[in-house]
């Protein structure tokens, strides 16, 4: 099943024999793979291969029928999404989530984890601490927006920016949560080529700075250029894993994409 | 009263709840929001029938203790409820640019408007249809069943309407489209179903059945501007019990909730006979399972079902 999976010494995310079925149909079928720390790992597969289901299982949005998920060596199987996030795994969503009534920087500020001001009591007992961390977070948010070259959007309503810009903001916000591993669900779907290139550069830059990525993407050129290794999912299980070159030339992968994977 | 007696009452009351819950469920799945004005749609049906019946009178003969004029009034009640619902959809809901929660809140406003208009016109007091009250059917009294011919009429008409709906859903083009839309609105739209039209028919059918339920409720108890709103939560309980979006679930849920409601006095007898320990628990339970709490029991069942099986008792269980 997981034949072709590469050995991983320092895995930040380990998925072992994960299973999930809906109404008798196996959406995730004994999936096993790992994400090595410091990599940009791509997750590809034909439509209906179960990529999004797998993301939902890993991030705690679905409860698996069997198997385990480990983040940083901790078993997070069956945990709530916020608990999985607390262990360092942050995800984004395929469709940009619009935040009504929030400005871009406000939406960004939801990102940092464990803010003192998120405790109701602290707001009244220790407003100084709240102000301090808030200033720090705001400065950090503005710095990341600058890095992403979208600082001019900071005080724009989050609903008024383009879908591509929203994708950038989502990535930026996720970075504020300081993830050990960041799961990106189709980061460039519906994004124009210029912005897509910008996103690619940012992901690469952030990766060089130490963030591990696992990304689902349909844009083959994008994923082949960015990710290594690449995990291929077909009908809920891992078909193979390898370098972009290796995957591209793998007959089984081509079969799967042509719909003859069985 | 005997168990049979309670069961008979339950059957009659269930008929009314089923008529209400089908419409609520249809609108919930096809128009995609919890319609808090559904109870007051029932009230509209009841009062329209009241006015019609007052105007046309008996019209000669009678069936099951009910004059012909009453059946005409029933048809008018159904029609008015349907027309009002369609007008509301066209004038209010359709032009709105809000999500399903916004529609839910709007529907409360609509409910108040319906009720206020009725209350301004008819006052807040109870009224009755001008039909002669009947004595219980003699042949059944020895069994402890005290139902009148009117009750039989309610049950019979409800069964006829439900069977009619079943035929419509299963054997007509409209019914197939409605089921498709209830299952998956997006898929229905892309596969070329004119969803707006199906939605309008949903309102016609849902509100029409609610109107009939309202007329029967008025006959079973009496009429008051709050009658529908008071029943709304019981109907929601039925819809949720059956699983939102499933018409047949709503029928089953309506049947069960109606039965539980009318069987409460019987349950309270049963509880008294049970050896419940410790004693304080027995006291609490005996205290809660009384006729005063008949509706409260339905609401608690509803909340429990929402928690344990959000898809209804026949659904796929918790997700």
């Amino acid at each position, binding site marked *: 099943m997981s034949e072709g999976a590469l050995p991983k010494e320092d895995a930040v995310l380990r998925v072992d024999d994960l299973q999930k079925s809906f109404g008798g149909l196996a959406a995730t079928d004994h999936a096993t793979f790992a994400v090595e720390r410091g990599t940009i790992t791509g997750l590809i597969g034909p439509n209906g291969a179960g990529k999004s289901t797998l993301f939902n299982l890993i*991030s705690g949005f679905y409860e698996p029928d069997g198997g385990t998920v480990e983040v940083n060596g901790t078993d997070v199987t069956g945990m709530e999404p*916020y608990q999985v*996030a607390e262990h360092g795994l*942050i995800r*984004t*969503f395929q469709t940009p989530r*619009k*935040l*009504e*009534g*929030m400005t871009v920087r*406000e939406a960004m*500020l*939801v*990102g*940092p*984890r*464990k803010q003192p001001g*998120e405790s*109701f009591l602290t*707001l*009244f007992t220790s407003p100084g601490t*709240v*102000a301090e961390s*808030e*200033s*720090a977070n*705001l*400065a*950090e948010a503005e*710095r990341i927006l600058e890095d992403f070259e979208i600082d001019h959007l900071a*005080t724009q309503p989050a609903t008024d920016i383009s879908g591509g810009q929203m994708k950038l903001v989502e990535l930026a*916000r*996720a*970075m504020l949560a*300081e993830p050990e591993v960041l799961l990106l669900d189709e980061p460039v779907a519906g994004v124009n080529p210029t912005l897509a290139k910008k996103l690619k550069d940012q992901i690469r830059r952030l990766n060089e*700075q130490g963030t591990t990525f696992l990304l689902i993407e349909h844009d083959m050129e994008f994923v082949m250029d960015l990710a290594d290794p690449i995990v291929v999912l077909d009908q809920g299980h891992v078909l193979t894993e390898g370098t972009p070159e290796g995957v591209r030339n793998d007959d089984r992968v081509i079969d799967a994409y042509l719909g003859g994977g069985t | 009263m005997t168990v049979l007696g309670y069961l008979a009452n339950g059957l009659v009351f269930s008929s009314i709840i089923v008529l209400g819950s089908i419409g609520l469920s249809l609108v919930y799945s096809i128009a995609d*929001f*919890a319609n808090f004005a559904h109870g007051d749609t029932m009230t509209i049906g009841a009062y329209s029938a009241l006015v019609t019946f007052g105007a046309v009178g008996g019209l000669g003969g009678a069936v099951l203790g009910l004059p012909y004029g009453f059946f005409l009034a029933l048809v008018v009640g159904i029609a008015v409820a349907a027309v009002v619902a369609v007008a509301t959809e066209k004038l209010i809901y359709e032009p*709105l640019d809000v999500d399903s*929660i916004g529609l*839910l809140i*709007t529907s409360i406003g*609509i409910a*108040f*408007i*319906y009720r*206020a208009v009725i*209350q301004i016109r008819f006052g*807040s007091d109870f009224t009755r249809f001008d039909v002669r009250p009947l004595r219980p059917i003699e042949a059944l009294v020895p069994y402890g069943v005290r139902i009148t011919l009117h009750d039989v009429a309610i049950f019979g008409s409800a069964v006829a309407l439900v069977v009619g709906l079943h035929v419509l859903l299963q054997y007509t083009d409209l019914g197939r489209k409605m089921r498709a839309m209830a299952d998956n609105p997006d898929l229905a739209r892309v596969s070329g179903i004119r969803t707006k039209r199906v939605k309008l028919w949903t309102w016609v059918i849902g509100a029409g059945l609610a109107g009939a339920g309202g007329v029967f409720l008025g006959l079973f108890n009496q009429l008051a*501007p709050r009658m529908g709103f008071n029943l709304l939560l019981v109907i929601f309980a039925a819809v*949720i019990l059956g699983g939102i979006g499933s018409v047949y679930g709503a029928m089953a849920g309506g049947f069960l909730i109606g039965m539980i409601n009318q069987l409460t006095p019987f349950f309270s007898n049963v509880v008294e006979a049970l050896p419940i320990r410790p004693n304080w628990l027995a006291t609490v339970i005996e205290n809660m399972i*009384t006729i005063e*709490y008949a509706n*409260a029991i339905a*609401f608690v069942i*509803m*909340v429990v079902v*929402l*928690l344990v099986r959000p898809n209804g008792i026949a659904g796929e269980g918790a997700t």
Partner: protein
Amino acid sequence: MSLLDDPKAAFADLSRPEGWVLGVSVAFVLFLFVAMLTGALGPTYFLFLVGLAGMYALLSFGLNAQWGFTGLINFSVAAFFGIGAYGTALMTASGSPIAGGFSPLVGLAVALVVALALALLIGIPTLRLRADYLAIASLGLAEVVRLIVLNERWLTNGSAGLRGIPGFFDGWPVLSTFPEAMPGLRLEVIPGSPVILETAFWQASLNVLLVLAFAGAAYFVLRRAHRSPWGRVLRTIRSDEDLARALGKNTYSFKMQSFVLGSLIMALAGVFYAHLNLYVGPGDLDPITTFYAWVAVILGGSGSNRGALFGGIVIVTIREGTRFLNDVALPIDPAPLRLLLIGVVIVAVMRYRPQGVLPPQRELIWPSAVGGGGTPETPDSGVRERKGGGDDE
């Protein structure tokens, strides 16, 4: 608030709806004031109206903390209002079947504790539910509470209600005898129609003081809590709960906090009501109270505390205006007229201004972090440096 610091700038800052609301409110208060001075409106009644407006504003604050902040559809406002009123009444009223005779402060404490317990009881099962299920379940549970109050005579006196509730300041030093101690004043602004201020007037002004204290405290807490990381998480949950979860927020806990906070404020409104009306009955748990609060919040602007205040005033206008109309002009029963107005306002708001008249405009960022002019200085230890990711610019 800012009006006091810098009136000119504050007025210049007003958006059109704000100016409009302010204008109408000022005109309305002036109108009432003139009516009072000319003797057309009894001064005691005027203060009663102010107290009532404060009470609805409190209810709206409470609902705003739930629906406006977090998007929780709570249809059990009336239950919390009623529990607050019954909580204090049962402790203080001479007609209480279980206790009675305690100080209103004990009543206040008991009311808040009971409301807290009820909030947990309703919140624990329902806050995991989808938004529309929460609406239905909360309305159902509110009805259960109403039925219990109506039927458990040994506890609540049933449909007879509770009489003999003291004023809130009874038994306090100075304040308890303040109304009697004040001299009767006779103002004659317009010759021939004097305005007489007597004990009842001073009693009513104490009540206004009380509701202002309650509402002021609630406003202070909500304002600070809303423009903070806490309020920001709530707004994220309102827009997209899954996103908040994905970012590591324990949304159930946040929803519970918002629910409890709002419920306590609603109970506060109930406590005030009991000591204003000096009688509570099961009718005070009628669902209509819930929808009064809803109208106030969606009309004012969900998430906006100022809006809730404005909404509270509108509700009193609807309530008392219909009564007035019935007295002088139209012989229409005020009850259905109120219902009609409420219905029309709900539909009109959803149709023409779903965001409400005064939608919240401020960013939910701790004021001192954005204020103070310009961008805040770069912090010594940036978030990423702490992590040691090698983030040198």
